[in-house]
């Protein structure tokens, strides 16, 4: 994919303005229309106008897909439309969550200026992008997969124009039709991970694998659980053979009883599993696989396991917000991050596996061959995704979580 800054960009601009004037639309109306019917449909008249008014000598590189162009080149695959990106892009992401040079590479390739804001935790992220119900001024953000259905229902997300994201073809089969967003209509997967537990063998000897280690009284005062209600109840669920997405009050009562037995041993429901494990505050802790990878940068001996009883598989996503002022640049950002090289570079930087089949051969062997970061198929079968819960069902978890915490 190349960026062509010369004639087409100004022509698109001229045609865009003419179209808007003819239709008595503002740019905002056009964006609203993009949100409703997708970028290609909304922009088709403009692209067609560009095509029609382009003299063969002026800009032969304009090759946007129009019905006539598609018809005339029937045997070859339909060329990807390449509308010109806007000059800016506002991205809202975790700190240190992509390779350090990803933004610079994108800016260079597409001549788009990226403004990159960071959020400290997912609650802040959600509060901000929901503040005006259309993204709080950002174009792209990275929500957890569990948020997608709720965000889409509330109109916070722009339905993706998949023709602008040809790199979707790179996705591994597990990720092309996820439960949380069938057909990746609103989101593309970004990283995936497991939630297991980590321990410091200097303090906790032995080869642990079962979740029961987190109920072992000898770890009293040095045991950590994540400060995340769904994840904590999921662990109790795996021990009891109950679904971590259960909405049955009886199931949840059993889980709560088991967690209440564990609580006297727990030092902290931690928001910082990395810091608490590396500082020695915790000896054994419920932890995310990618966080473990960051722990071993400090303390290489720390171990991690995905317990055989089952574990949570999580993934986060890239989405475009419905209020995006730069939807085309945003699509390009999504596509860019699904590029095999970019995806591999991101994984190499932070240790979270990407969903990108094409990137596998480019990932550092120390990551891709580590069964803890990239579990084999037999383990993957036992992984469960946490699903979005309706408010009344989420309340069943929240009230019990608060009861446990109080």
């Amino acid at each position, binding site marked *: 994919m190349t960026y062509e800054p010369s004639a087409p960009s100004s022509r698109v601009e001229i045609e865009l303005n003419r179209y808007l004037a003819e239709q008595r639309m503002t740019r905002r109306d056009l964006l609203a229309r993009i949100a409703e019917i997708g970028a290609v449909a909304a922009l088709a008249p403009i692209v067609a106008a560009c095509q029609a008014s382009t003299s063969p000598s002026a800009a032969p590189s304009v090759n946007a897909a129009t019905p006539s162009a598609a018809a005339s080149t029937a045997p070859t695959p339909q060329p990807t439309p390449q509308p010109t990106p806007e000059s800016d892009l506002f991205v809202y992401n975790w700190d240190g969550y992509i390779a350090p040079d990803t933004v610079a590479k994108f800016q260079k390739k597409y001549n788009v200026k990226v403004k990159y804001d960071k959020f400290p935790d997912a*609650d802040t992220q959600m*509060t901000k992008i929901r503040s005006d119900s259309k993204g709080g001024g950002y174009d792209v953000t990275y929500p957890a997969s569990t948020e997608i259905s*709720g965000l889409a*229902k*509330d109109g916070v997300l722009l339905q993706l124009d998949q023709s602008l994201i040809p790199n979707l073809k790179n996705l591994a089969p597990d990720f092309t039709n996820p439960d949380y967003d069938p057909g990746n209509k609103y989101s593309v997967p970004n990283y995936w991970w497991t939630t297991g537990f980590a321990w410091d063998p200097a303090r906790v000897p032995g080869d642990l694998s079962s979740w029961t280690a987190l109920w072992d009284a000898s770890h009293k*005062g040095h045991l950590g*659980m994540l400060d*995340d*209600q*769904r994840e904590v109840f999921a662990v109790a669920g795996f021990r009891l053979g109950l679904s971590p997405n259960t909405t049955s009050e009886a199931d949840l009562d059993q889980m709560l009883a088991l967690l209440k037995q564990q*609580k*006297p041993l*727990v*030092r*902290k*429901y931690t928001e910082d599993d990395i810091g608490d494990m590396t*500082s*020695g*505050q915790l000896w054994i802790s419920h932890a995310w696989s990618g966080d473990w990878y960051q722990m071993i940068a400090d303390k290489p001996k720390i171990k991690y396991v995905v317990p055989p009883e089952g574990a949570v598989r999580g993934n986060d996503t890239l989405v475009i917000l419905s209020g995006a002022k730069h939807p085309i640049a945003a699509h390009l950002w999504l596509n860019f991050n699904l590029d095999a090289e970019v995806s591999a570079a991101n994984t190499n930087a932070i240790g979270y596996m990407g969903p990108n089949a094409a990137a596998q051969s480019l990932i550092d062997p120390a990551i891709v061959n580590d069964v803890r970061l990239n579990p084999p198929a037999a383990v993957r079968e036992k992984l469960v995704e946490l699903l979005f819960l*309706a*408010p009344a069902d*989420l*309340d069943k978890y*929240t*009230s019990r*979580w*608060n*009861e446990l*915490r*109080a």
Partner: protein
Amino acid sequence: MATTAAPAGAGTTSPVAAVAEYRRPLIDRIAGLALILPGVLWLAIFFLLPLAIILVVSLGSRDAAGHLTLAQPNLNNYIEATRPAYLPAFANSLRYSAITTLLSLAIGYPIAYWISRYGGRRKVLLLILVMLPFWTSYLIRTYAWMIILRDNGVLNSGLQAVGLIDEPIALLNTDFSVILGMTYGFLPFAILPMYVSIDRLDQHLVEAARDLYASGSRAFLHVTLPITMPGIVAAALLTFIPAIGDYVTPDLLGGAQTTTIAKIIQVLFTSGRNWPYGSALGFLLMVVTLAGTLVALRTLRREVLA
């Protein structure tokens, strides 16, 4: 306030009657209103309005999609908020703020007394030193406590180095660390009002007590302490009320066994996505705090401040 000429004929009436008859001119009354207006506006916009919003939200509920709806206002959230399951967290909040208040008074009073009586020309400098911690963000200072208190932190390493302990003592994530952090944080708020009232104390009264053969401690107990009691009460309120809702300190320095009611409310607003319920619990906490404070003040006024 501008001095105004005495009303005509004031010379003939007694001074007391003149004061009783005196009415401020219109311009003064307008000026008075203008002076109080910013304060009233501030309170209305930043206190009463948010409070009203919380109250309204707390009477609402959520529709199937999780959005706030006020279609059928009701008190269900308040009924839910009184669940006995939350009592341990509420008890923790009360306990931490009570101990923090007592410690702040006990540590703060001698400091305030010393600065006022023995500060001499350095009084201002000493007061600036009391407030010096405010120059750094509270969050950073709390993280500093984490570094000092954790198992391999400054304190434990030091104690191990001098051979006082073999294994680290669990200091962080305990009642101890929460109370330490809160007392550290609220101490300046306790010192300042006590300083003001000690500094205003007429030293002649203490001298008079000594002249009447009161011992130093009797003079303190029967003269200094009662006269400076308003400062102590102000210090207690300025410590206790914010302490009971403190979220940051228990969250960062506390652990699994130190959950406060503020954390419960935070969970309801964030991962629980239940703003109406969180608002109800928050509002209830405020009402309980306010009622408790008023009762305490009334009792004190009758018995101590009278």
